[in-house]
């Protein structure tokens, strides 16, 4: 995507998160003023260490916080101009915003096909069968699995979760660690698919990833979150060039990659969780 085209699209913000704070259980504050913009048609990635609040951010967007006793106490979230931080999750999905939740969360006591059909729950058109074929083409392994989804291997479940999101044909997908537990070959494929559907179907994505190398390869823009705050953001190139990002997220940057074996001492960082 050229610089100017990106600029042109930036005016068309699909998802705008404006300074939100999130509290769990009335007492545990997790997000402390987070703002993220996702322009239409782009892939935006959100990076950060464990417990930073990435998943919480996604759940705040998709409205699923409420089911976990969480609450957006400040700020607002707009999707296609409509305010959604108070809307019900199903309404948000109907508006075209679909989340692939962390940890797969497929419906275990249904078959693969039934899971895929469920993904298309909000659709009314008749092309569901064709889309199932499309997903099975993306992930041929799933075709052979006729039993219950609960018996799939971890990676297979992850494929199913991504496939299910495609079935919804949303405007935008929130992906929470899609590459988790996938073999290197598949990781590559999945990111290929992500890029492909972004390009071909124009689906906007907000991608939470630990695999920063890949994430920054496909993303147009990135945010880095630590302890419930955005500490850094920039275009892909800006982030790739940043020394800290290189050191902490990409691994070594220009120098030779350090071996895991030779790290002699732990880096002691103070984290306020």
């Amino acid at each position: 995507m050229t610089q100017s085209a990106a600029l042109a699209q930036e005016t068309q913000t699909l998802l705008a998160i404006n300074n939100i704070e999130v509290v769990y259980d009335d007492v545990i504050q997790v997000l402390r003023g987070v703002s993220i913009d996702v322009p239409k048609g782009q892939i935006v990635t959100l990076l950060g260490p464990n417990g930073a609040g990435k998943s919480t951010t996604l759940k705040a967007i998709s409205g699923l916080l409420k089911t976990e006793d969480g609450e957006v106490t400040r700020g607002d979230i707009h999707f296609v101009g409509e305010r959604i931080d108070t809307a019900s999750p199903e309404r948000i999905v109907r508006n075209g915003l679909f989340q692939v939740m962390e940890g797969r969360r497929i419906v275990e006591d249904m078959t693969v096909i039934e899971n895929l059909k469920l993904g298309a729950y909000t659709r009314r058109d008749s092309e569901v069968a064709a889309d199932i074929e499309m997903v099975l083409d993306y992930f041929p392994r799933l075709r052979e699995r006729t039993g219950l989804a609960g018996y799939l291997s971890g990676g297979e479940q992850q494929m199913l979760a991504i496939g299910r999101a495609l079935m919804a044909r949303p405007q935008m997908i929130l992906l929470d660690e899609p590459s988790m537990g996938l073999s290197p070959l598949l990781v590559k494929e999945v990111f290929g698919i992500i890029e492909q559907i972004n390009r071909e179907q124009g689906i906007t994505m907000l991608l939470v990833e630990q695999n920063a190398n890949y994430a920054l390869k496909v993303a147009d823009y990135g945010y880095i979150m630590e302890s419930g705050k955005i500490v850094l953001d920039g275009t892909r190139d800006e982030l790739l060039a940043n020394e800290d990002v290189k050191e902490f997220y990409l691994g070594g940057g220009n120098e030779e990659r350090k071996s895991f074996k030779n790290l002699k001492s732990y880096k002691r960082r103070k984290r306020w969780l």
Partner: protein
Amino acid sequence: MNFELLLQLVINGLIVGLLYGVVGMCFVLVYKSTQIVNFAQGEFLLVGAWVCWALLVYLELPFLVGFLLSLAFMAVFGVALQMIVLRPMIGEPIISVIMVTIGLSIFFQSLVKWIFGVAPANYPPIFETQSVSIFGLNIELAYLLSTVIALFIMVGFYLFFKHSKHGLAMRATAFNQQVAQSLGISVKQVFAMSWGIAATVSATAGVVIGMVNGVSDSLSVMGIKVFPAVILGGLDSIVGAIVGGIIIGVLENLAEFFDSQYFHLGNMYDIAPFYVLLLILWFKPYGLFGTRDIERI
């Protein structure tokens, strides 16, 4: 061996068992979509039967009109109940919700007693002939009709869960409400629908039993009576509920047969099904047709 008696008892068991099955299906429906075991099931029967009775006796409506009206009332009743009481409980621990249904059961039992009194009442005669004879056993006509209705309902349920989108949605909701919501399923709608259907179908059973035994507050016992049937068939199996119901029905009658003819232990009619239940569960921990939990790590 008194074969004639045995045959009659078995037929009796089959027919009563089918009725257990119908009530059992309502359990299954609610369970399948909400994971809740509805302890207020019996009260659905009770309320439905009394409402129909009131329509027939006070308003003197023809049976069919009164019956359909009471079904409509129960559909609204089920949905309203869900909206007022159970909706706030969405996402709360299942056991708390189950307790709420117990509360509902206490509430409605007293309410009905208050309104309609504690004395049992009879439906006005509806059919010309009260009973017909099958293999020498006289069976109430209402029962026979109910078996036909039961079969219809059963087939309907089966198709619903197997093929409609809503059936899938219900199953997904039961699996995990959060996941269902993330798929765009309105958990509220699913719940309202299943409670509405359950209340309506229960009312049908309530009216049938009311026609045979009279309406009284003890109709609600049916709610407990069908537990063994539902478990035997498998909590989440529509077919299982029917099969379980029939097994329990026949079992009760067989127990009565052997007890009265040979053992003379007393009370076997009520207790024997529970022994058999324990036995069957030992070998089939998820009932005859229930899906096993996925145990994987």
